[in-house]
């Protein structure tokens, strides 16, 4: 049910300025970045973590030192995979997309939707433990989505 507490007798209740300032000062994007850093600490063989829109524009990303990936390229390229995975699930009447795992000879890419218009992706080397990768992405997805809600 929609939260109608902000509307009383046709009068729109404003968001408290204090709350607005807090959000600005804390920086919701900063919160998002720190979440990605937390995720990175838990995975060996990490190459990139990206939160991006389905249009391929990176919202936040983490690339560890030594990785050959650029977050912008990864976000743009993985958005195409995210979109085609969602379309395929839809066309094959398989229900809602939970995640997409791409494996190549040198890497693994796990993409998880964050709502309808954005996604969380983790790129690792092929020898990174897949179980940990899936666990970390799954457990942080809702936190990242919450932080993302504050950014937009």
């Amino acid at each position, binding site marked *: 049910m929609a939260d109608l507490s902000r509307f009383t007798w046709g009068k729109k209740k404003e968001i408290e300025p204090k709350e607005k300032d807090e959000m600005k000062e804390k920086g919701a994007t900063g919160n998002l970045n720190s979440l990605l850093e937390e995720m990175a600490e838990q995975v060996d063989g990490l190459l990139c973590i990206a939160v991006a829109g389905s249009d391929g524009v990176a919202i936040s990303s983490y690339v560890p030192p030594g990785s050959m990936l650029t977050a912008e*390229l*990864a976000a743009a390229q993985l958005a195409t995979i995210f979109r*085609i995975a969602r379309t*395929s699930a839809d066309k094959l009447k398989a229900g809602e997309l939970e995640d*997409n795992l791409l494996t190549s000879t040198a890497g693994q890419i796990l993409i998880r939707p964050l709502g309808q218009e954005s996604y969380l992706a983790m790129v690792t080397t092929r020898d990174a433990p897949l179980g940990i990768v899936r666990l970390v992405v799954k457990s942080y997805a809702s936190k990242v989505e919450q932080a993302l809600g504050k950014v937009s």
Partner: protein
Amino acid sequence: MAVEEDNEEMEETEEIKETETTEKRSIGDVVKEVASTTDGLLGVGVMDMEGVPVAVVTSPGATLNAELAAAQLAVVVRLCSLTADKLKLGDFDENLITTASKYILTKALTPDFYLAMILSKESTTLGMARLVAREHAARVSQALPRFE
């Protein structure tokens, strides 16, 4: 004596023919065997990169459109190959789409063909789906027609 020798030779050649036919099994037979030995399978097929099915088996209860699946998943495989290439992650191996009720797995066999499997999440696990695909990919690759 000469007749006996002839008979023996005939039997030997028949045996050789039999072993040749068992080795050179058609792609359709191999796909059927994969379908009959995999738990939770809704559909399995070998498709070409143009999105045309080569050999497909769907389980009796499944309402899968093989033509649609082949066409749609060919786009997935092409995009995955392109992505692996652009991100310098080597050659594309496999892609697994997990949805609320199904696993949709695509695995590259050769530059021209890929293996697609759709499995029910109720009857199998992600680990089993990957293992089964890996096991069958080699057998299916061997049965693929080769034009030299």
